[in-house]
Protein backbone atom coordinates (compact mmCIF):
# COMPACT_ATOMS: atom_id res chain seq x y z
CA UNK A 1 0.00 0.00 0.00
CA UNK A 2 2.78 2.41 0.96
CA UNK A 3 4.64 1.58 -2.24
CA UNK A 4 1.51 2.30 -4.30
CA UNK A 5 1.07 5.72 -2.65
CA UNK A 6 4.77 6.44 -3.12
CA UNK A 7 4.56 5.51 -6.81
CA UNK A 8 1.49 7.70 -7.30
CA UNK A 9 3.17 10.63 -5.56
CA UNK A 10 6.34 10.11 -7.61
CA UNK A 11 4.31 10.10 -10.82
CA UNK A 12 2.53 13.32 -9.85
CA UNK A 13 5.85 15.01 -8.98
CA UNK A 14 7.43 14.09 -12.32
CA UNK A 15 4.26 14.99 -14.27
CA UNK A 16 4.06 18.40 -12.59
CA UNK A 17 7.76 19.04 -13.22
CA UNK A 18 7.41 18.19 -16.92
CA UNK A 19 4.33 20.42 -17.13
CA UNK A 20 6.29 23.24 -15.45
CA UNK A 21 9.11 23.08 -17.98
CA UNK A 22 6.83 22.67 -20.99
CA UNK A 23 4.56 25.72 -20.29
CA UNK A 24 5.43 28.94 -22.11
CA UNK A 25 3.42 31.20 -19.85
CA UNK A 26 5.37 31.66 -16.56
CA UNK A 27 2.14 31.92 -14.53
CA UNK A 28 0.94 28.46 -15.56
CA UNK A 29 4.45 27.11 -14.99
CA UNK A 30 4.40 28.56 -11.46
CA UNK A 31 1.02 26.92 -10.75
CA UNK A 32 2.36 23.53 -11.88
CA UNK A 33 5.45 24.12 -9.75
CA UNK A 34 3.20 24.61 -6.69
CA UNK A 35 1.64 21.23 -7.49
CA UNK A 36 5.10 19.67 -7.72
CA UNK A 37 6.17 21.12 -4.36
CA UNK A 38 2.94 20.02 -2.65
CA UNK A 39 3.47 16.43 -3.78
CA UNK A 40 7.11 16.62 -2.69
CA UNK A 41 5.76 17.50 0.77
CA UNK A 42 3.57 14.40 0.57
CA UNK A 43 6.67 12.33 -0.30
CA UNK A 44 8.43 13.67 2.82
CA UNK A 45 5.44 12.71 4.95
CA UNK A 46 5.52 9.21 3.43
CA UNK A 47 9.18 9.04 4.48
CA UNK A 48 8.00 10.02 7.98
CA UNK A 49 9.84 13.35 7.94
CA UNK A 50 6.65 15.15 8.93
CA UNK A 51 8.20 18.42 10.04
CA UNK A 52 10.13 18.89 6.81
CA UNK A 53 6.99 17.96 4.86
CA UNK A 54 5.11 20.82 6.51
CA UNK A 55 8.07 23.12 6.04
CA UNK A 56 8.21 22.22 2.35
CA UNK A 57 4.58 23.28 1.91
CA UNK A 58 5.04 26.41 4.02
CA UNK A 59 8.28 27.77 2.57
CA UNK A 60 8.33 26.45 -0.99
CA UNK A 61 4.68 26.27 -1.98
CA UNK A 62 3.69 29.04 0.42
CA UNK A 63 6.42 31.67 0.46
CA UNK A 64 8.68 31.23 -2.56
CA UNK A 65 6.01 30.47 -5.14
CA UNK A 66 3.76 33.29 -3.90
CA UNK A 67 6.76 35.61 -4.30
CA UNK A 68 7.29 34.35 -7.86
CA UNK A 69 3.59 34.71 -8.79
CA UNK A 70 3.51 38.18 -7.23
CA UNK A 71 6.53 39.20 -9.33
CA UNK A 72 4.91 37.83 -12.49
CA UNK A 73 1.79 39.89 -11.73
CA UNK A 74 3.93 42.95 -11.00
CA UNK A 75 5.69 42.70 -14.37
CA UNK A 76 2.43 42.10 -16.25
CA UNK A 77 3.86 39.60 -18.73
CA UNK A 78 1.57 38.72 -21.60
CA UNK A 79 1.67 35.28 -23.13
CA UNK A 80 2.47 36.50 -26.66
CA UNK A 81 5.13 38.96 -25.48
CA UNK A 82 7.22 36.32 -23.74
CA UNK A 83 10.57 35.30 -25.16
CA UNK A 84 10.57 32.58 -27.79
CA UNK A 85 12.14 29.20 -27.08
CA UNK A 86 15.67 28.37 -28.13
CA UNK A 87 16.28 26.74 -31.51
CA UNK A 88 15.08 23.18 -32.10
CA UNK A 89 18.66 21.86 -32.38
CA UNK A 90 19.60 23.01 -28.86
CA UNK A 91 16.33 21.61 -27.48
CA UNK A 92 16.89 18.18 -29.05
CA UNK A 93 20.50 17.99 -27.85
CA UNK A 94 19.47 19.10 -24.33
CA UNK A 95 16.60 16.61 -24.21
CA UNK A 96 18.86 13.78 -25.41
CA UNK A 97 21.59 14.53 -22.88
CA UNK A 98 19.04 14.87 -20.07
CA UNK A 99 17.37 11.55 -20.94
CA UNK A 100 20.76 9.78 -21.07
CA UNK A 101 21.72 11.31 -17.70
CA UNK A 102 18.42 10.24 -16.13
CA UNK A 103 18.85 6.72 -17.53
CA UNK A 104 22.44 6.36 -16.27
CA UNK A 105 21.68 7.74 -12.80
CA UNK A 106 18.54 5.61 -12.49
CA UNK A 107 20.50 2.48 -13.49
CA UNK A 108 23.10 3.35 -10.85
CA UNK A 109 20.45 3.81 -8.15
CA UNK A 110 18.50 0.70 -9.16
CA UNK A 111 21.63 -1.48 -9.14
CA UNK A 112 23.16 -0.06 -5.98
CA UNK A 113 19.97 -0.07 -3.91
CA UNK A 114 18.33 -3.00 -5.64
CA UNK A 115 16.67 -4.69 -2.71
CA UNK A 116 16.91 -2.05 -0.01
CA UNK A 117 13.73 -0.75 1.53
CA UNK A 118 13.36 1.91 4.20
CA UNK A 119 15.08 1.21 7.51
CA UNK A 120 12.90 0.32 10.49
CA UNK A 121 12.32 3.19 12.85
CA UNK A 122 12.73 3.06 16.58
CA UNK A 123 9.69 4.89 18.03
CA UNK A 124 11.85 6.25 20.88
CA UNK A 125 14.01 8.32 18.54
CA UNK A 126 11.03 10.37 17.26
CA UNK A 127 12.69 10.47 13.85
CA UNK A 128 11.59 13.26 11.56
CA UNK A 129 9.69 15.18 14.21
CA UNK A 130 10.34 18.63 15.60
CA UNK A 131 11.97 17.23 18.74
CA UNK A 132 14.43 15.19 16.69
CA UNK A 133 15.55 18.19 14.68
CA UNK A 134 15.37 20.71 17.52
CA UNK A 135 17.70 18.74 19.77
CA UNK A 136 20.31 18.73 17.03
CA UNK A 137 19.70 22.37 16.16
CA UNK A 138 20.64 23.66 19.61
CA UNK A 139 23.43 21.18 20.24
CA UNK A 140 27.07 21.92 19.56
CA UNK A 141 27.01 20.55 16.02
CA UNK A 142 24.00 22.52 14.84
CA UNK A 143 24.67 25.93 16.34
CA UNK A 144 27.17 27.22 13.78
CA UNK A 145 25.03 26.31 10.71
CA UNK A 146 22.02 27.84 12.51
CA UNK A 147 23.88 31.13 12.91
CA UNK A 148 25.08 30.84 9.31
CA UNK A 149 21.46 30.70 8.12
CA UNK A 150 20.63 33.73 10.28
CA UNK A 151 23.45 35.81 8.79
CA UNK A 152 22.56 34.60 5.28
CA UNK A 153 18.93 35.69 5.64
CA UNK A 154 19.97 39.04 7.11
CA UNK A 155 22.43 39.61 4.24
CA UNK A 156 19.75 38.76 1.70
CA UNK A 157 17.31 41.14 3.36
CA UNK A 158 19.78 44.04 3.30
CA UNK A 159 20.85 43.23 -0.28
CA UNK A 160 17.28 43.06 -1.60
CA UNK A 161 16.30 46.36 0.06
CA UNK A 162 19.42 48.01 -1.33
CA UNK A 163 18.70 46.69 -4.83
CA UNK A 164 15.06 47.73 -4.74
CA UNK A 165 15.79 51.23 -3.39
CA UNK A 166 18.27 52.13 -6.11
CA UNK A 167 16.66 54.49 -8.62
CA UNK A 168 19.32 54.99 -11.29
CA UNK A 169 21.53 52.32 -12.81
CA UNK A 170 24.66 53.46 -14.57
Amino acid at each position, binding site marked *: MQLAIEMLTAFMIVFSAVATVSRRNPLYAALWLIN*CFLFTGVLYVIQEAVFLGFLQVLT*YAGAILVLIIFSIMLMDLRDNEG*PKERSAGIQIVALGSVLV*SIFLLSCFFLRTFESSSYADLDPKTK*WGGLQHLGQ*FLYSEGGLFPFEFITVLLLGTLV*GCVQLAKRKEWS
Partner: protein
Amino acid sequence: MTVSLVVGAILLFIGFYGVITKRNLIMLLMCVELMLNGVNITLMTFARQHVDSGAETHFLVLIIFAIAACEAACGLTLIVTLFKQTKNLDIDQLCDS
Protein backbone atom coordinates in the same frame (compact mmCIF):
# COMPACT_ATOMS: atom_id res chain seq x y z
CA MET B 1 13.21 3.87 -1.63
CA THR B 2 14.70 3.60 -5.13
CA VAL B 3 11.53 5.24 -6.46
CA SER B 4 12.30 8.38 -4.48
CA LEU B 5 15.93 8.37 -5.59
CA VAL B 6 14.92 8.06 -9.24
CA VAL B 7 12.37 10.87 -8.80
CA GLY B 8 15.12 13.06 -7.32
CA ALA B 9 17.37 12.35 -10.31
CA ILE B 10 14.56 13.01 -12.80
CA LEU B 11 13.64 16.33 -11.12
CA LEU B 12 17.28 17.44 -11.14
CA PHE B 13 17.64 16.80 -14.85
CA ILE B 14 14.23 18.22 -15.80
CA GLY B 15 15.33 21.41 -14.04
CA PHE B 16 18.63 21.24 -15.90
CA TYR B 17 16.81 20.88 -19.23
CA GLY B 18 14.75 23.97 -18.39
CA VAL B 19 17.85 25.98 -17.48
CA ILE B 20 19.45 25.10 -20.84
CA THR B 21 16.45 25.66 -23.11
CA LYS B 22 14.42 28.48 -21.52
CA ARG B 23 15.06 32.13 -22.32
CA ASN B 24 12.68 33.72 -19.85
CA LEU B 25 14.50 34.75 -16.66
CA ILE B 26 11.61 33.81 -14.36
CA MET B 27 11.38 30.37 -15.96
CA LEU B 28 15.13 29.94 -15.35
CA LEU B 29 14.63 30.77 -11.67
CA MET B 30 11.79 28.26 -11.39
CA CYS B 31 13.91 25.56 -13.04
CA VAL B 32 16.69 26.18 -10.51
CA GLU B 33 14.10 25.70 -7.73
CA LEU B 34 13.13 22.43 -9.38
CA MET B 35 16.77 21.28 -9.32
CA LEU B 36 17.11 22.17 -5.62
CA ASN B 37 13.92 20.22 -4.95
CA GLY B 38 15.39 17.14 -6.63
CA VAL B 39 18.51 17.40 -4.46
CA ASN B 40 16.32 17.70 -1.34
CA ILE B 41 14.37 14.56 -2.22
CA THR B 42 17.60 12.58 -2.72
CA LEU B 43 19.03 13.83 0.58
CA MET B 44 15.85 12.98 2.49
CA THR B 45 15.74 9.48 1.02
CA PHE B 46 19.31 8.79 2.09
CA ALA B 47 18.54 10.23 5.54
CA ARG B 48 15.57 7.87 5.84
CA GLN B 49 17.79 4.95 4.91
CA HIS B 50 20.59 5.84 7.35
CA VAL B 51 18.48 6.76 10.34
CA ASP B 52 21.45 7.35 12.67
CA SER B 53 22.60 10.44 10.80
CA GLY B 54 19.05 11.65 10.19
CA ALA B 55 19.23 14.92 12.14
CA GLU B 56 22.29 16.17 10.26
CA THR B 57 20.69 15.49 6.88
CA HIS B 58 17.42 17.06 8.01
CA PHE B 59 19.39 20.13 8.90
CA LEU B 60 21.17 20.12 5.55
CA VAL B 61 17.77 20.10 3.83
CA LEU B 62 16.73 22.97 6.10
CA ILE B 63 19.81 24.95 5.00
CA ILE B 64 18.88 24.28 1.35
CA PHE B 65 15.37 25.63 2.10
CA ALA B 66 16.91 28.83 3.47
CA ILE B 67 19.32 29.16 0.53
CA ALA B 68 16.47 28.58 -1.94
CA ALA B 69 14.43 31.30 -0.24
CA CYS B 70 17.38 33.71 -0.36
CA GLU B 71 18.05 32.86 -4.00
CA ALA B 72 14.41 33.44 -4.94
CA ALA B 73 14.26 36.77 -3.09
CA CYS B 74 17.53 38.10 -4.54
CA GLY B 75 16.83 36.74 -8.01
CA LEU B 76 13.33 38.19 -8.19
CA THR B 77 14.54 41.59 -6.95
CA LEU B 78 17.16 41.60 -9.70
CA ILE B 79 14.63 40.46 -12.33
CA VAL B 80 12.03 43.09 -11.36
CA THR B 81 14.71 45.81 -11.34
CA LEU B 82 15.98 44.63 -14.72
CA PHE B 83 12.46 44.58 -16.13
CA LYS B 84 11.85 48.13 -14.92
CA GLN B 85 15.00 49.25 -16.73
CA THR B 86 14.75 47.31 -19.98
CA LYS B 87 11.11 46.07 -20.25
CA ASN B 88 12.58 42.76 -21.40
CA LEU B 89 13.24 39.37 -19.83
CA ASP B 90 14.82 37.54 -22.78
CA ILE B 91 18.34 36.56 -21.71
CA ASP B 92 19.65 36.37 -25.29
CA GLN B 93 18.47 39.91 -26.08
CA LEU B 94 19.79 41.17 -22.74
CA CYS B 95 23.21 39.65 -23.50
CA ASP B 96 23.27 41.25 -26.96
CA SER B 97 22.31 44.74 -25.79
